[in-house]
């Protein structure tokens, strides 16, 4: 614990901006950047509080003159849309597969990063190649395969494959992180007779905190916003997700900008909360690497 605190202070001294002037300057730059980054969201937020008449007659920059919650009420209380039920579905589909895939991706990444084995480099190319074919042409055969397995209209196509390594992107990213971990510790552990399983579980995985948290957030956000997966694999409206609900809202009210934006805001909110919570972890990191 003590060593960790110390290392924080030293890091502040070492790799970072120090003087007051520099800090102030940085703050200005970051604020300016943040403001420009938030422009689209500002417009979305303003539009979501406007009535259609107001959207038609005022500039998109103007704050809502007669701010109304009607758009939010419409979205949240629509019985057929059932946003609350869809929220729980979405939460499940965003979290469970993500957790499973991160864990198994770390398992698969470990030998690619730190072990010598038969055909490693070529298997790695094979791993990357699974990302290279556009999903458009594998969509139908994939669907047919899941249908033959009887997985259609259930969460199985989302959950079960997540236990199989969770995709090349995650494996590749964790591998990169693991390769950056110095080898002294596991060499020492190996000499002490530790098996690879022990080294993975006790030494490597605990050092992968930042990358696992990063992938956790990316996976959660991706799962939360996934449209094609639920749209294709699920039939029952009760199983559907928020993004699909939002889409049907858009189809029904194509010209209803305010309603659209309110829907987007409502979907954005939970991801925002998760990210706000998650970022604490991956920015603090569970970095033991240097804490000898």
């Amino acid at each position: 614990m003590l060593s960790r605190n110390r290392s924080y202070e030293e890091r502040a001294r070492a790799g970072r901006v120090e003087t007051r002037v520099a800090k102030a300057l940085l703050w200005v730059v970051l604020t300016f950047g943040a403001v420009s980054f938030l422009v689209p969201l500002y417009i979305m937020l303003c539009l979501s509080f406007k009535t259609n008449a107001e959207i038609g007659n005022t500039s998109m920059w103007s704050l809502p003159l007669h701010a109304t919650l009607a758009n939010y009420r419409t979205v949240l209380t629509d019985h057929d849309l059932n946003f609350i039920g869809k929220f729980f579905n979405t939460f499940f589909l965003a979290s469970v597969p993500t957790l499973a895939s991160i864990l198994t991706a770390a398992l698969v990444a470990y030998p690619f990063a730190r072990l010598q084995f038969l055909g490693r480099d070529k298997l790695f190319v094979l791993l990357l190649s699974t990302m290279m074919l556009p999903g458009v042409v594998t969509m139908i055969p994939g669907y047919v395969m899941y249908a033959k397995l009887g997985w259609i209209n259930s969460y199985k196509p989302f959950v079960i494959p997540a236990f199989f390594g969770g995709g090349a992107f995650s494996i590749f990213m964790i591998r990169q992180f693991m390769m950056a971990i110095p080898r002294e510790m596991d060499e020492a552990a190996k000499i002490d007779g530790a098996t690879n399983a022990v080294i993975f579980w006790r030494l490597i995985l605990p050092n992968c905190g930042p990358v696992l948290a990063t992938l956790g957030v990316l996976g959660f956000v991706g799962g939360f916003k996934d449209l094609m997966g639920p749209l294709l694999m699920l039939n029952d409206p009760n199983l559907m997700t928020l993004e699909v609900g939002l889409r049907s809202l858009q189809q029904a009210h194509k010209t209803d900008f305010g309603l659209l934006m309110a829907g987007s805001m409502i979907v954005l909110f939970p991801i925002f909360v998760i990210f706000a919570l998650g970022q604490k972890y991956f920015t603090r990191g569970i970095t033991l690497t240097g804490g000898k």
Partner: protein
Amino acid sequence: MRLLGVIAGLVVVGLCRAETVTIRFAAASGGDNLKLLNKQVAEFEATHPNIRVKLEPISDNYENKLLAEYAANVAPDCAGFSANRIVNFASRGALLPLNDFPDYGSPEVDIKGRYQTIVDALTLDGKLYALPRDVACTAIIYFNKRLFREAGIPYPDGSWTWHTKVRPELREKDFVWTMQQLTRKKPGSTVPYQFGLAAAWPQLWMETLLVSSNVRMWDSDANPTKLMLDDPKVVDVFQFAADCFNVHHWLPSNNDVSLGSGSTMQDEFRKGRVAMLQSGAWEIKDMRLKMSEDWDIAAFPRNAHAEAPYLPGEGGGVGIFKTSSHPKEAWEWIKWYCGVPGSTAIAQAGETQPSIRALALKPGVWLPNVGVHIPPEHLAITDALALRVYNRHLPNWFSGSVFNDLGGAYYGVLSGEKSAREVLAQLQRDEPGKLKLAKRRADGPPYPFVNGLLVAISIVLALIAWVYVPELKKKRTRTERAESRSAYLFLIPWFCGISLTIGPMIYSLLLSFADSDIIQTPQWRGLGNYVDLLNPRVDDTLWISLRQTLIFAGVSIPAGIASALGLALLLNQKIKGIPIFRILYYLPSLASAVSMSLIWMRLFDKDQGLINAVLYGADGKSGFLHLGLILSNLIGTPGQAINWFGNTKTVIPAFVIMGLWGAGGGTIIFLGGLQGISTTYYEAATLDGAGPVRRFWKVTMPLLTPYIFFSLITGVIGALQVFGQSFVITAGGPDRATLFAVVWLYDQAFGQLRMGYASAIAWILFVVIMAFTVVQLALAKRWVFYEGGLK
């Protein structure tokens, strides 16, 4: 006795349950529409106790999902089909002909009482494949009464005509003259402040003129053998359609108002910037709710010289899949749903015009009063228009190719780069070859599935051999063998999973040597798809598409990595409020892509967008550092504000700029990497007297190279498969500038149902991506630094 009663009761219930049949009904719907559908299903079930209807609303990718379900043999029993797309399913034998039901001719089905136009549209080779539900003519003219009064023009009564020349002597009886009069310009300005007409979507105008003028572009709809695309009449109409935008500015082009989703033209009309709007009858409901000024509708004019008063239209009905195991029950449902009970409710909700003519003419059913005073003539006008709808019946091998190319040619003329005569003459030269190919495809030999399976197995074996055969020669020590064994234990989940990934991949590879429309069994085509793709005389899209994709990748990858890295370095600083900043910068990449695209369309708007406001200033001439004027000169439109999404030179930069707002995703990858860097290095470097700059280049950068490498590899893979922005905003345009490889192959796969061709494109793209990746992997050894790297 009581027990017996209970048993008897149970038996009765059991029998009833056994007789109850559940049918699945898929419908493209959402929101309000869904509410009504649920209500209708409940009503139907109350009167048909033996049938349960399971509603499967599909809110997006409707046809794609049906195709996937049909391919997997899990299609719903019945589904809605639009008049213009049903041929894709019906001509391939996916649907049940409804004429075979014994009560087809009954008054309940009432085929004779329905608009003949929609019945014809859903009929193929004398068989009806979907029971018509609604009819929709897309050529209703909505007009703003105030603007007519101001111009001193009497309100149109539908007796007007059009011709490709203005006929001032006819005054308001000439549609073109009316359009001209209602277009208002400020003196000295080329772009009007008020437009005569707007079409609800860009291609509608051309389509309407072609249909309305009765021009023949091929000899026969059922079996086209000869094309007449360069016929003077076709050229004349084509050029006129484009000139209305470019030369006369009677219609706002993408250069004149914002290029937006279909909705903006309606907005422009409601704001009074457009005097007339061409759209379908479904707009009436919206217009009543949202239009604050006085408005009315009129019929689209007849062509002055054409014999038939044809107009384009949509509409649709409900068909039964051949795979349905309960066709009788499905038939009961669609008879009800597309019959008087179902149609009445839909018409009363103002959704669509019923296909049953008596209902469409019944006051209070179709177009009922909703608060505002509605002239009763609206019923008569929509009725008359429904009778004028003309749907072509083209064979599926023909329609995809020709309409796509006609659309492309139209945009070429619209962009002002070529004349109608040139593009149509070119099409006339190229098209017969393409059609011959398309037709030959329609009767190719069956796909050798057994051989295919053998090929698939040999591919897998070859891959295994490629990985392991060279390894066999190497001598390994015992510890090495043990390490290898334990490594494979870790890989078990991946080996389980790879079959789920590699199976569909191999299938698509096999399909790239076939003709496949997803519905029917594939046909063998050999190398044909690849030969066509690589031969620019058959299809010149591959080179253009790959070029544009590579340009996008070349600009977006460096920009994306640099911005993500820079941002990560800034956000890794230890100053007050940094957690908040991290969230704020990441927020845009969390928002819904579609909503963000809609906002970006407004930001890049030519006239009202923020970007041009900064570049050109309020007067259109000053602006920040006069950047706008410089840029306008650079892209060859001096004096005009940049039309970002409408110009072939600026659309990709605009996409790249949009992409930067998603840099948050890349940033958190680098942040994760930065957090992993041990502080001891910085301490050591500081002790050695290294300053911040030196520490950055000697410590931070080398240790970040694994993540830069990761971003490069995944960036290339992602950028070469770019899809979303083009799909939502520009649909491949302008002039194929954003027809990126995946956008194009998506259209081939699901727009044209040429899955074999799409698969061939995908595999060519695969090879390109693979080549880039292999080169990067080889180069990585020189610059990527792994602290814990193996040899």
